[in-house]
């Protein structure tokens, strides 16, 4: 089984992270800001063209994520539709000072998934979990407009030791609980907790000061 990448080749100094006082243009930050501007145009002016662009940007990755969480394709389609309807009808509740558009969209989808699973649908856990997270860092299947962010987040994740990165991706991509991960990997629960803490706090430190 191949896990993500076998080699680490990214500088530990993380040159593409914008810190306070750094005037170097950061394409990933620009991409994130552009998404937020689109959502603000939907919110402030009911801009249909901006919504269409958001739709094109978010629905492929939301569908991928919801499927990885264990939903059947038809359910994933329905959930994504609900999320996008909410993004259109309730855009007035978006506050760019509190969250970026991508955080807001993620939390809308996450909340919809929580409702969905609490309503009784069982997660489909028959698939091989590692197959789901393996392609996360591949760079050969991305449309050009996502390269900047992809490279940036990939570099952040590359900062982590593979055993920490694996746990974080099982949490976020597949929605596995730390108890489930301990059982899957045959690790003591304390090991999963400590690896999660180290990975999470490392990324938090690296991302501090970003827009």
């Amino acid at each position, binding site marked *: 089984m191949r896990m993500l990448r076998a080699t680490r080749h990214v500088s530990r100094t993380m040159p593409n992270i914008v810190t306070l006082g750094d005037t170097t243009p950061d394409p990933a930050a620009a991409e994130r800001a552009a998404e937020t501007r689109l959502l603000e145009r939907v919110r402030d002016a009911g801009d249909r063209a901006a919504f269409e662009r958001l*739709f*094109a940007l978010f629905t492929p990755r939301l569908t991928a994520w919801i499927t990885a969480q264990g939903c059947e394709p038809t359910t994933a389609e329905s959930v994504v539709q609900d999320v996008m309807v909410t993004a259109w*009808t309730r855009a007035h509740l978006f506050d760019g000072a*509190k969250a970026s558009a991508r955080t807001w*969209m993620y939390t809308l989808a*996450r909340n919809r998934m929580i409702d969905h699973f609490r309503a009784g649908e069982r997660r489909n856990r028959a698939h091989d979990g590692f197959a789901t997270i393996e392609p996360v860092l591949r760079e050969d299947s991305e449309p050009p407009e996502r390269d900047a962010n992809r490279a940036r987040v990939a570099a952040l994740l590359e900062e982590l030791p593979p055993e920490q990165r694996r746990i974080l991706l099982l949490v976020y*991509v597949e929605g596995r609980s730390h108890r489930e991960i301990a059982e899957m990997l045959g690790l003591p629960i304390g090991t999963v907790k400590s690896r*999660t803490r180290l990975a999470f706090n490392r990324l938090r430190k690296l*991302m501090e000061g970003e827009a």
Partner: protein
Amino acid sequence: MSIVHHPSEAWLLDYALGNLSEPFEAVLRAHVGVCSTCRDTIAFAERLGGEILHTLPGVPAMGDARAICDDHEQRREGMLAVSRARDVAVTDDIEQLVQMYLDSSLDALPWRQIGRGLRLCRLAEQDGARMWMLRGTPGTVLPEHGHAGSELTLVLKGAYFCGSEIFRAGDIEDADENIEHRPVITRDGECICLAVTEGRLRFRELAPRLVQPFVGI
């Protein structure tokens, strides 16, 4: 309220992603309501989720943006809970907060005396997780025990020691099968805790093992 002990990041991620049974969810929600540090951690967990979402290779998606715009009117009013960091009742009065979740006063609960100055009340159970309210008199020494699974204990009132650590109102003690402890309630007042356990506790001493089948903890 000065909170020193927090649930591990693994618990907060599970909370942020909605992966928990209701007993664990409830005890964490009560802590998050009084702990700005954990609310910040959850907010960052959500931000990180948005970033990791963007690393996924997209798949062809169905749907039509124009149809959504045609079929649904934008609203300009109403509320919508979005962030789990803000979707909690924030307060400094943890006892009042838990009463709100319990829909009952502490005194109205059906307490059961289990000896050694300790009363216990089982509140809920789901997926093998049991939620308890514990109430001990000053100086009570609880039996030393290990765990068959996870255990989260939120102090509502008073304080207790575990070894050299002291847990006060608002603190969470995060234990699991790798941890054995013997909580000792401080001598300056009653201690009330909300706890969630998985599986049976593992007592070293005979007396609590004899009582255990009747109590169910």
